């Protein structure tokens, strides 16, 4: 009952004109970003953060705008998957398998509307899952002391590499690089400058927003320049949609699939290091094994369209659970959302639920509203978005670059930050070429200082005894999970990753 009362309060927060408009704008932009190949949820949200920040939006409105973009991108990715056979973003890659054949059979409209419904079901159920699960996780998190938090951060880093990279050494490198970058600046506990090399600009530390926009958005521009990929993928193709209502029979036959994959996707989203791409991958594979009796998956089976779409939208909701309840994001886009909260001086985690319940419940209510908006936008108005697919990257990418510059310049008004951002753009391009995942780098710069503070607090409380880190059963359990999460993928994960990367596009390193 308590939950429902909170939710009612949340709707009171979300149902203001400003928040509704922001949700609408976020849904619209998110769908576009999801649909356009080259822009996905993580870099889409990354570009918009500085804007939300400089516009002086509060915590709740910013989060509403940016999570609407996140949910919207999950919807939008399917459009180009189905119509062009090119995933609009990474989570939509499994939708290509059955969506594209359906479109070739002249059933593009049915595929789009069915996947829209599946997205809605997945996101709707996942938002309920978020409501039910997050408070439980908060109860556990309230038992955490500094040693447990340190172990939890270690767990986040060690499991993040598990799925997002094919090479554990590279994900460890990425995490250490991110943590190292976070160390730059004046030490918060003793006040001595570290790694600043006398440069006054560095005393405050690197702004992680600058790092995120550079790594995620600018590096994408460099990738496009490298391949001189300026033409629109949709050019010269006839994009015919056809009827936009799926037959009732089709929805009925897909309902069990949608419900099952929503649950699967949600679980995949909650697990650290997984994110929406894995959610849609697992959903598709399991569903194929479960119901594909006559080998129709891969040839345009509607269930093969519904499964990954329900899965990735549910995973997007699931990924919000650890980010909000523990302050430890498990995926690229939630890491970017964490950056928003941190730059607004709000620390996610158990205290968020007690100190800023309006932020949490306003966000949750906004997710319900955004979801309904997205359903409305993505079925009757899908024609509008298909036309936007015609925007060629040669026009889109310069806009992405310029908006990134505007956003970062808007925050600080300093050219130095712009140069740092360009540096991160080049670094991001180089790391993507070398197949080093970018998400641990971001997570490292975000969590580095909190991780160090918890380490030092834990040890100082225990008078300099380092064994205090593995002193409590809870901390030990977290370390065991962390080590298992790091080692297991080396032993058994190769196959899953290989088959996932087969379908991946060049966005591989930015997994969301």
């Amino acid at each position: 009952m308590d939950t429902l009362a909170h939710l009612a309060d949340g709707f009171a927060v979300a149902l203001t004109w400003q928040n509704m408009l922001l949700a609408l704008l976020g849904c619209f932009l998110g769908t576009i970003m999801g649909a356009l190949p080259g822009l996905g949820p993580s870099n889409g949200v990354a570009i918009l953060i500085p804007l939300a920040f400089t516009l002086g939006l509060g915590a709740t409105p910013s989060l509403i705008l940016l999570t609407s973009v996140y949910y919207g991108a999950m919807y939008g990715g399917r459009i180009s998957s189905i119509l062009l056979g090119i995933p609009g973003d990474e989570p939509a890659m499994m939708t290509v398998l059955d969506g594209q054949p359906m479109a070739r059979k002249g059933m593009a409209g049915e595929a789009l509307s069915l996947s829209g419904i599946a997205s809605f079901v997945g996101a709707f159920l996942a938002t309920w899952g978020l409501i039910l699960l997050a408070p439980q996780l908060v109860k556990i998190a309230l038992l955490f002391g500094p040693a447990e938090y340190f172990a939890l951060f270690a767990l986040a880093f060690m499991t993040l590499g598990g799925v997002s990279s094919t090479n554990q050494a590279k994900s460890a490198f990425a995490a250490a690089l991110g943590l190292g970058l976070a160390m730059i600046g004046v030490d918060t506990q003793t006040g001595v400058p570290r790694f600043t090399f006398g440069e006054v600009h560095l005393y405050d530390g690197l702004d992680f927003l600058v790092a995120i926009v550079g790594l995620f958005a600018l590096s994408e521009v460099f990738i496009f320049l490298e391949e001189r990929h300026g033409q629109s993928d949709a050019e010269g193709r006839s994009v015919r949609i056809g009827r936009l209502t799926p037959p009732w029979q089709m929805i009925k036959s897909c309902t069990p699939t949608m419900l099952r994959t929503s649950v699967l996707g949600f679980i995949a989203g909650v697990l650290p290091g997984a994110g929406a791409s894995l959610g849609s991958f697992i959903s598709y594979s399991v569903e194929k094994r479960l119901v594909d009796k006559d080998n129709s998956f891969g040839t345009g089976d509607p269930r093969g369209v519904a499964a990954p779409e329900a899965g990735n939208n549910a995973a997007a909701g699931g990924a919000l659970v650890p980010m909000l309840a523990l302050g430890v994001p498990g995926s690229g886009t939630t890491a970017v959302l964490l950056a928003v909260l941190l730059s607004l001086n709000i620390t996610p985690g158990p205290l968020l639920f007690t100190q800023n319940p309006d932020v949490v419940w306003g966000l949750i209510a906004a997710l319900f509203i955004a979801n309904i908006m997205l359903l409305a936008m993505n079925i009757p108005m899908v024609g509008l978005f298909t036309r936007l697919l015609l925007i060629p990257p040669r026009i889109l990418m310069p806009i992405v670059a310029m908006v990134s510059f505007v956003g970062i310049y808007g925050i600080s008004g300093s050219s130095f930050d712009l140069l740092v951002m360009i540096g991160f753009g080049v670094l991001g391009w180089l790391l993507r070429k070398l197949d080093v995942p970018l998400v641990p780098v971001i997570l490292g710069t975000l969590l580095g200082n909190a991780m160090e503070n918890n380490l030092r607090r834990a040890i100082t409380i225990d008078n300099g005894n380092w064994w205090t880190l593995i002193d409590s059963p809870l901390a030990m359990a977290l370390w065991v999970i962390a080590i298992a999460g790091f080692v297991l993928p080396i032993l058994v994960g190769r196959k899953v990753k290989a088959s996932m990367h087969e379908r991946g596009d060049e966005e591989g390193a930015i997994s969301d």
Partner: protein
Amino acid sequence: MSDRIFGIFGILLAVGFAIAALSIEESFLSDAVGPKAFPLIIAAILGLSSALIALRPDPEPRWPSLLRLAEISAAVVVMILYAQLLPVVGFIVATACAATYLTWRLGSSLPGAVITGISTSIGIYVVFHLVLGLSLARGPLGF
């Protein structure tokens, strides 16, 4: 080969990071751990993972040709110039030039690129400055 070079570079980075960490001046008021310990742990992980990357390299990535590499470097130079000139010449002029360049290099015809660049610049100015009220760099002409 790329991974071996990358690994060795990583080891050097780790060593540099460790040296820089050791040279941090300790304050007389310090906690039990001090400001050096955590950076040293990071340096150790950085070094270990780099060594592993160098010893067990992945298959060679697909590097662009020299021409494409020059393309990226040129874009970086343009962006650096953009960052430096932004406060000098103002938002609209600088952005129009940079956007024109990028659009042109991504395969537009030159006249098309100029039109796209100028409209991108003015579009961003209208949306972000006039509508949303973001403060953009002012040039000598006031925009």
